[in-house]
């Protein structure tokens, strides 16, 4: 779900920076989830693609590989001939977001996902 090695590279091992980046990522992902829902509701395929593209870049930069892969697929689907199914897409997005939130929480609490 998350490549913590990448996060540590980006934060240069600074715990405060790691926390800031993770909080920013979760906030971005949550906002994108809301906005993608609205865009799907409005059949705004270009907006869905743009949102997925933006979040994809952020995820890759800090190591959120699983959500990055989801965003990549969502962007491709939104640029395709038909808009992806709103309900299925949002459910899948929510699952990815929840998984990310769980692994981030575990990391911040020093759990198993924090391979230091």
């Amino acid at each position, binding site marked *: 779900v998350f490549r913590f090695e990448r996060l540590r590279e980006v934060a*240069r091992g600074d715990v405060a920076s790691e926390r800031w980046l993770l909080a920013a990522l979760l906030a971005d992902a949550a906002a994108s989830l809301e906005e993608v829902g609205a865009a799907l509701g409005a059949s705004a395929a270009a907006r869905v693609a743009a949102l997925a593209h933006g979040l994809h870049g952020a995820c890759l930069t800090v190591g959120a590989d699983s959500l990055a892969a989801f965003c990549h697929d969502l962007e491709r689907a939104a640029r395709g001939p038909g808009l992806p199914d709103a309900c299925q897409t949002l459910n899948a997005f929510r699952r990815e977001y929840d998984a990310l939130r769980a692994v981030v929480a575990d990391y911040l609490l020093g759990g198993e996902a924090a391979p230091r």
Partner: protein
Amino acid sequence: MSPIRVLIADDHALVRAGFRGLLLGIEGVEVVAEASDGQEAWERIAAARPGLALVDISMPGLNGIELTARVAAEQPATRVIILSMHATEDYVLRAVRAGAAGYLLKDARPVELEWAIRAVDRGETYFSPAAATHLANHFRRGGVNSRLESLTPRQREILQLIAEGHSTKEIARLLKVSVKTAEAHRTQLMMRLDLHDVAAVVRYAIQVGLVDPAS
């Protein structure tokens, strides 16, 4: 030795923060400015005159390719490294044609980022392995665009006519085929090129040199 002064341009704050962090870890590199869109990047490059700009391709307003072309023409002391999530052949070739000195993926390792920064600062170029592979393949084929190669001669002809502004009816008349046949060719070529509207077809035809943008 004076520091390598860098600007980061990306519309996503998290990406800018990530690259700022990576750059801070490289000795002799100083982040002098950041920008969240192409126009702001242009203004900051003109004001701060960094030696190097890390530029995202997909930015609102002035996109990264357009910004690169403008910087290469008007602020050549600033060299541009494109940041992207994908190294598709089209993106890489467009970046090179615009004057980019480098092409990096957003998940580039810190050591690769440092190689790129130092190479470009020395006046050399740096292309990530994926981008370099596309460049090599492109020149191995004699500079022919791979997607363009996938078209039949008839589809290429129709692509050019669309880009020149001809309607399907006009294309059918010019090629002495039925409107239905011209329409079928048009649909197939757009599918092969993964283009979804006429504007994208025109841009593509200009990019691969099938039509002259000035004409």
